[in-house]
């Protein structure tokens, strides 16, 4: 008996559209993806989109307006499985770097002044799990094509995706790179989810944390290690919170709350 193709929807909330673009970037495989799955909605790629029941919804971007929120709640209702794709959907990303709502509001006013927005109310940017249950997280800024393809294939076959739980350092060792921390360069590899194949350290550049926190990350130990190495406290916290959004909120709040 021929199995029905899984119904899949790819959605973009507020973000850089990089994860959807990366799916388009799977040039060789994209035609196969369109054959293997029933792509119900993918705004960047097609105009005949349908909003119906879904087996899998892939959602990128963070919730940054009331419209985003309404769309996310609707997608959650229609989808059996919801996968957050990319950093913004998973932990909030750059735009969620203002951890304090008041700070966010002040900055919003500085950019847009007092203009009343008529089309949709802005919200302090948050990842998907601030509002709905997320079944799987595909990290990355943007996501990695191999990881995306393997995740999609496993979902199409009815299996849960298998993602790396370890940090960038593991991949960096696999590539036999010199440790940048040993050279006195502030690298966030020990805290950051793997999957990028340690691309920045392999280019002689420090990891900036753009995949968000690794599952096994020990922020407290890393913070202490960096302090011991003589890095400035504010600089460490600033670098840690640039990409990790709410993924680092608790840690950052605790450290900032402690006396110097």
């Amino acid at each position, binding site marked *: 008996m021929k199995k029905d193709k899984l119904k899949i929807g790819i959605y973009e909330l507020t973000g*850089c*559209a990089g994860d959807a673009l*990366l799916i388009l970037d799977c040039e060789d495989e994209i035609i196969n993806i369109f054959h293997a799955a029933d792509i119900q909605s993918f705004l960047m790629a097609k105009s005949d989109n349908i909003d119906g029941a879904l087996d899998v919804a892939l959602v990128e971007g963070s919730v*940054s307006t009331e*419209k985003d929120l309404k769309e996310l709640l609707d997608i959650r209702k229609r989808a059996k499985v919801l996968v957050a794709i990319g950093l913004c959907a998973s932990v909030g990303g750059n735009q969620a*770097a*203002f951890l304090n709502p008041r700070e966010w509001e002040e900055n919003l006013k500085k*950019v847009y002044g007092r*203009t009343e927005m008529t089309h949709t109310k802005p919200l302090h*940017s948050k990842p998907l799990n601030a509002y709905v249950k997320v079944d799987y997280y595909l990290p990355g800024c943007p996501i990695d094509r191999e990881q995306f393809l393997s995740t999609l294939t496993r979902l199409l076959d009815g299996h849960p995706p298998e993602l790396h739980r370890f940090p960038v350092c593991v991949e960096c060792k696999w590539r036999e790179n010199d440790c940048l921390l040993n050279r006195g360069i502030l690298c966030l590899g020990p805290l950051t989810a793997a999957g990028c194949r340690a691309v920045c350290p392999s280019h002689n550049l420090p990891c900036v944390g753009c995949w968000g926190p690794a599952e096994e990350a020990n922020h407290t130990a890393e913070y202490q290690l960096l302090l011991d190495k003589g890095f400035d406290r504010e600089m460490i916290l600033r670098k840690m919170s640039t990409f990790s959004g709410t993924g680092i909120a608790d840690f950052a709040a605790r450290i900032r709350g402690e006396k110097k």
Partner: protein
Amino acid sequence: MKTISISHLARVEGAGGVTATIDGQVVTDVKFIINEGPRLFERLTIGKTPEEDLNIVPRICAICTLSHRFAALRALEKALAIKEPAKVSLLRELMHLGEMIESHSLHVYLLALPDYLGYPNAIAMASKYGFEAKVGLEMKQFGNHIMKTLSGRFVHGENPVLGAFGRYPTRDELVFIKNRAVQFLPFALRTVQLMCELPYPEIPESDTLFICCHPANGQFGFMGDKVILSNGELIDAQEYKKVTNEFIVSHSYCKRSQYDGKPYSVGALARINNLGERLEGEAGRAFKKYYNARWKRNPLFNNAAQALEILYSFERIPQVIEEALNMPDPEPVAWGRDTGKGVGAVEAPRGLLFHAYDISAGRIAHTDIVTPTAQNAEDIERYCFIAAQTLLKKGEEDKIKDRMDLVIRAFDPCISCSAHMVQVKQAPNGDWKNRLKELASGGDVVFVGLGREDRSDDAAGLELARLLRERGSKDVWLAEELSGDSAPTDGARPLVFLDAVDFGEKPGKICLLPMRYVLWNSSLSHRLAALTGLPLDSKRLLEAHLLGIQPASIAQGDPISAEVREALNGVLEILGN
């Protein structure tokens, strides 16, 4: 009244839309809406180091990621007095050419061409146009390959840094790119032929101002320290605010730009219109063969311009690599200072991009970023209006939605940097009443009556002004009373012109229109002749409204018709209380 709405603009990068409102024979409102929420990038960079800024700002947009990085590098290096070595300049040009090829081939083949060939997407198009879809994908893949080689990743690569690259590409990597670029030339030529010979629809066509970077070396290219306007003006990039004049509209988180109070266009079409004469080789020959006056009036030719730029890029790559191969990998360059200001201008695939920074003691103190889609937003609205109004007038209302969709997509908006949606809606009956009330709620309205006496209904505007005065309204003017010394000066108060306007409607029908639509509407713009002598600046005029009343007759000597008389009473009723 009716609204045509494209609520989710498909096949563009990001989330947004456009809504057109139709009242009988008149388009009364067009809004280009960006649904992306505010991301506050300009504020996120404050207090960061220049290196951290480079981690953050490319994330504004995935498809222009390297253009953002490039613009930021140019601005930061200017501020920090860093002069990048010649090899770094060449490799940056190469990565930028890769992004141009990637973005343009994605847009031309996968996003725009399905429209012109009548398919919902490129996959469906591939069944009959398999060759085109395949070539498009391969070119895009090659562009991605260049970007990955130079930047480290397909998207958001961190390899290009201040004054240097983290890792320099190997000789083999560069030779591979050079050889592949040469192999692609026939396909680039075919792309130009395909896109330049498409039968682009004649609606909308209208003149505009084009702005792009001005390469100092006299050649075609995608960056410069100055920008060139299609009127011949050159403006230093450091004075970019003279060009962009940003302002905020309430229906979008994307800021808007106008030059001299008017919308302008940036992008591939701007570059070809302003600099196309500079193209050499096959691209130069193709320019001479295909370029004509319509390219200056019709935004759809942006797709043809993109094809020319794809060809240019494939011709330029081997030259760049040839030069770079002879240079050793340079040593890192030190900062010249840690405090300073700098503006960087580059051409992103979809147009002019500015990054401006103030750096104080090694930390970013102020950031301003002006994206191409933000600059195009006003012209996108204007061309959508012209398309909708022209088609409506021709009785082809059913085509409005698809045409607006085509226009927006032709601009190649990168909506995340600032859209998914085209909507056409009919205004509810008497919509003008609500809108007039809304205007009046924004402060005491200043009315100016226009028209000709003794010409029956053509005197309606003058008559209405007189009636308003009789009823005690204070700020009411007749056009003839306005002079240099005596004119409504308070720019904050709403200004409404009253006049008889032939919309092709039933006599007595009233329409309230933003003045800029009158200006953009060729069948109404003669009304503006009456306004040119008035002592009002162009900005005040563009922000004003026109309350138009459809005349029954404009015959000499006749009195005002019963229909128009009734309409005037209707206006007085709204304003009376």
